[in-house]
């Protein structure tokens, strides 16, 4: 399966602060891919590089075969881009936006746009600036869906949306990806909605790839244990075995991709005798936070 996006050892910094630090990943054709990470992890910088809005200071990136900073108009025509914050020409009405964008995309599907937009309780003569954030998100999504792109990139689709609109947007995306076979790359710092949606996830932290997995293998071997807190436990730090260490109230909590025996061994080596030892089931969000940290 060909790679639609190839990022190879991407590096970038702002005013001396390294934001991307050798980030490499590939997005293969088909499916929904999540580029996840906490705020400041480097997601938006990566998207800006992918779309040619930034030239990386090191490494390279190719999108649909073109170097990302030299995307040809023919290539851009195949990419539907949802800008962070649902940026759009808000001096135009809904109808004017549809009329404007249809000129640029030969495969424009007016019915896709209409289906999504007619569910809004506002007339199409309403200016985008007069819509709520949720309604605006729906119009922006309708605009890129109607393009029938080969690759869809959604930069922080969840920003500013309440749970209802987030769910609505994901439901539309899921149905759309199934019907048209579009490859979707989305970024988000809200992960709880994504477990059932994405087929492949890339977690980035401090500008490099921290974890990558396909559906059914998300956090497959990551497990979490709780035990009684002690002065020795308070001295614990992250190691190759202990993916995360946290202390809440009277308990210490550790996560690891290693098996239980190896984790207990690692604790013993640090002088910790775990008492009241028990495994705590991990949700998708728990696992994400354990991996990336809460702070």
């Amino acid at each position: 399966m060909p790679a639609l996006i190839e990022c190879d050892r991407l590096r970038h910094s702002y005013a001396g602060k390294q934001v991307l630090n050798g980030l490499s990943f590939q997005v293969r054709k088909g499916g929904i891919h999540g580029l996840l990470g906490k705020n400041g992890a480097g997601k938006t910088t990566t998207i800006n590089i992918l779309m040619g809005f930034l030239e990386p200071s090191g490494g390279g990136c190719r999108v649909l075969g073109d170097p990302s900073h030299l995307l040809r108009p023919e290539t851009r025509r195949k990419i539907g881009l949802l800008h962070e914050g649902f940026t759009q020409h808000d001096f135009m009405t809904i109808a004017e936006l549809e009329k404007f964008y249809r000129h640029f995309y030969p495969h424009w599907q007016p019915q896709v746009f209409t289906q999504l937009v007619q569910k809004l309780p506002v007339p199409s003569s309403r200016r985008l600036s007069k819509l709520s954030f949720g309604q605006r998100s729906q119009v922006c999504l309708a605009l890129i869906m109607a393009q029938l792109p080969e690759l869809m990139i959604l930069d922080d689709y969840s920003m500013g949306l309440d749970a209802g609109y987030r769910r609505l947007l994901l439901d539309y995306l899921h149905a759309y990806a199934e019907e048209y076979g579009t490859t979707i790359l989305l970024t988000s710092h809200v992960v709880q909605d994504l477990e059932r949606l994405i087929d492949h996830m890339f977690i980035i932290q401090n500008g490099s790839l921290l974890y990558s997995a396909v559906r059914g293998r998300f956090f497959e071997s990551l497990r979490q244990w709780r035990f009684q807190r002690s002065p020795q436990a308070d001295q614990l730090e992250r190691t190759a075995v202990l993916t995360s260490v946290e202390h809440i109230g009277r308990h210490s909590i550790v996560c690891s991709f290693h098996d239980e025996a190896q984790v207990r061994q690692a604790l013993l080596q640090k002088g910790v005798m775990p008492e009241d030892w028990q495994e705590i089931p991990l949700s998708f969000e728990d696992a994400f936070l354990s991996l990336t940290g809460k702070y």
Partner: protein
Amino acid sequence: MRDMHATMAVRGLLYKEWIKLRYLGLLPFALLLIALGNSFYDMHGLKSANGGQALWHAVIFRSHMPFEAMRYLPLFSGVWLAAAQFASECRNRRLRLFFHLPVNEHKALFLILGLGAGLLSLLIGILCLAQVSITGLFMPAEAARLSILTLAPWCLAGFIAYAATALIFIETSVVRRLWHAGIATVFVLALIDGRSYGSHIDGLPWFGLIAVLWFVAISNVLDRVKRGRS
């Protein structure tokens, strides 16, 4: 196929400019009508009250300009039209929408600039023709010619103001914006400051060249902004 895409894209870009300018673009023309009316009544009033000789004396010996109100009109129109086109295009990082359109961004930019400059040219064309006609009603052809030579630097200031305003909106660095604004102010003030008939006529080709350079600079700035280099 490529030609068809290009034609459709041009239509799309023109459609968006029409939406931006359909109301805001009328204001300079409304002001032009007022300025022309003022010029007509000034000349008409002088001639009716004191006779043709008094008008001639005021114009030739006292450098009285009945069309004084038009000194700032091209300048204002240039700033206004560029702001109408580029404020909505550039605010809140909306220029990224433009960069992502499947068109060559430099060609698209020059189409947008061409439309704005074309509208400004139309306004200036009407201004000059109407002013020549009004002057011709009250004075000999030489005076009409002189009024055009006087208006020419003011009109050129309008084009520099248009290009500079567009550049300032596209630019992302505050320091560079201030720099562009400062340089543009120097040129514009030099052009509109003439207090006598026919000022700056000798230097007009050079100012024309400077106006062209402003337009060329916009393309370079667009490239830099797109790459995220401020």
